[in-house]
């Protein structure tokens, strides 16, 4: 049985090219008609890949044409360069993909869920059989092992997610937090959206221009607060996001200290993403106040990214072990022409623990 994968990824092509070869729900079936005993399509925003188990060699061009939307008029030379990994290389590639090593942001975990979904879809349609079942179950094991035994997924790598992570480490359950967004810029909107995605429901927006505040409030499902009232809001909010274009700091130690004395017993997390900064750095010296400006958030994101890159070698070592074990676990080895021919099995025939 030949085990191989063919595909395009963010490393080799741009998004315009990839979207022309994104395949569709019928692709698995089309591929099986093209001579693939088993076929699984993994299509995400960063990659389009087909994993195949076949008794005979299926040319890359044939698979590429199954993926393309309108490739009948194109010659093979006109089509983008598809990569092809066979046998152990195919297993290694999938293990790297599932563990997030091949992702645009190293260590991201979304791809793991996408691979699981793709496998489930192929299993349900009957396109994935025992060959791909073994390969993907092993890939999921590898990804989990890499995640738990290395620090490849540690920390957030974007400013918005760093802010959300920090808020989580201060308040725990963010659903109960009250947030005030001061300034209605694009960065405020992005950070506010990141916080909403973590369950925040009490969101207020304040801006010098009331109209812009109203617009952003409507856009993100918040309520607008008149700009003159924002200092009073500091008595009850938990998180303050500032991004106004003010040339002088709006928040100083002297004017925040009296407000803090009146606050209910909770910390105040200030995310100052304005340049020039809206909060005087001395504000961070106040008890129970945690001030982060754009540079400190970026610095944490960069540290996380560096840490992730440092973990690549450890992750590759885990993957290499599993590639060897996977090769040994398949009777006759990978891509053995003499090995027994396996047919796709039904859902019921697969061990329950592996479903």
């Amino acid at each position, binding site marked *: 049985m030949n085990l191989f994968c063919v595909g395009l990824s963010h490393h080799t092509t741009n998004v315009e090219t990839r979207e022309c070869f994104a395949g569709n729900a019928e692709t698995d079936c089309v591929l099986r008609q093209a001579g693939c005993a088993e076929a699984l399509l993994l299509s995400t925003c960063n990659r389009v890949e087909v994993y195949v188990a076949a008794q005979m060699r299926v040319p890359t061009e044939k698979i590429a044409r199954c993926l393309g939307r309108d490739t009948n008029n194109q010659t093979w030379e006109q089509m983008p360069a598809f990569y092809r990994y066979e046998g152990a290389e195919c297993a290694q590639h999938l293990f790297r993909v599932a563990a997030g090593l091949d992702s645009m942001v190293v260590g991201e975990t979304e791809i793991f869920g996408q691979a699981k979904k793709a496998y489930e879809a192929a299993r349900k349609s009957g396109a994935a059989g025992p060959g791909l079942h073994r390969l993907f179950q092993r890939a999921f094991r590898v990804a989990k092992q890499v995640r738990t035994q290395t620090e490849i997924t*540690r*920390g957030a790598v974007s400013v918005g997610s760093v802010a959300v992570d920090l808020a989580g*480490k*201060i*308040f725990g359950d963010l659903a109960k937090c009250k947030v005030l967004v001061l300034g209605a810029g694009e960065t405020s909107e992005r950070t506010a959206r990141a916080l909403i995605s973590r369950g925040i429901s009490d969101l207020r927006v304040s801006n010098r221009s009331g109209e812009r505040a109203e617009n952003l409030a409507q856009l993100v499902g918040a309520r607008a607060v008149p700009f003159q009232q924002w200092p009073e809001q500091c008595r009850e909010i938990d998180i303050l996001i500032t991004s106004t274009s003010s040339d002088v700091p709006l928040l100083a130690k002297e004017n925040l200290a009296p407000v803090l004395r009146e606050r209910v*017993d*909770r*910390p105040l997390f200030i995310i100052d993403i304005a340049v020039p900064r809206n909060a005087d750095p001395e504000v961070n010296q106040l008890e*129970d106040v*945690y001030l982060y400006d754009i540079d400190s958030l970026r610095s944490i994101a960069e540290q996380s990214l560096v840490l992730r890159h440092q973990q690549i070698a450890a992750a590759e070592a885990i993957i290499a072990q599993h590639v060897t074990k996977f090769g040994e676990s398949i009777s006759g080895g990978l891509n053995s022409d003499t090995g027994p021919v396996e047919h796709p099995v039904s859902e019921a025939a697969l061990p329950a623990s592996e479903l």
Partner: protein
Amino acid sequence: MRGHALGRCPLTNLFEVFIFLAWSVALIYMLVGPVYRLSLMGAFTAPLVVLLQTFALLAPIDAPQTAKLPANPWLEFHASISLVAYGAFALAGIAGVMYLVQERQLKTHQLRSIFYYLPPLTDLFGAITRLLWCGFALYTLGLLSGFFVGQPLPTAQVICAIAVWLLYAAILQGRHLRRLAPRWVAALCIIGFSAALTLLWGITFTAQMAPR
């Protein structure tokens, strides 16, 4: 086994007191850890338990009782409930250490690996407050029951015990009136437990040295 051999609660010398305290810390952790989902607290609690047990086993403090002491329910209640209170104070101190580590990282923007494993600040502070109240209530009960043991109480021990009670009362009052920032409460929990442990040592040591 020792309790069975003595025919009473095994709290007759420093060795037994330290072993009992280690078990009290473990007991309170098992009650508090799952409730507040402070699983990492175990990583901080285990070394303290090991330290207490190791000290008890290695130090020459297991002085055997020459005469069988008569059973005194009030004394046993006083000693055991006070030690469980110490267990709660120990856990509050451990949560205090965790709080200070996390708070320092958040203030200085220097996030180390442990940052990602430690619980959120508000959860830690909630646990500290409840542990303090729990320990304080038990300690008060232990202190009051001490007056019913039917034996003359050494003045120095009574003064020290009341001093520890006052220290914890002051921490709780300071927090209630919002005069103490959470950071100070966490630091005082560590100081309070260290003081309580020293007092415990003093009380048991003088009791052991006293002529019978």
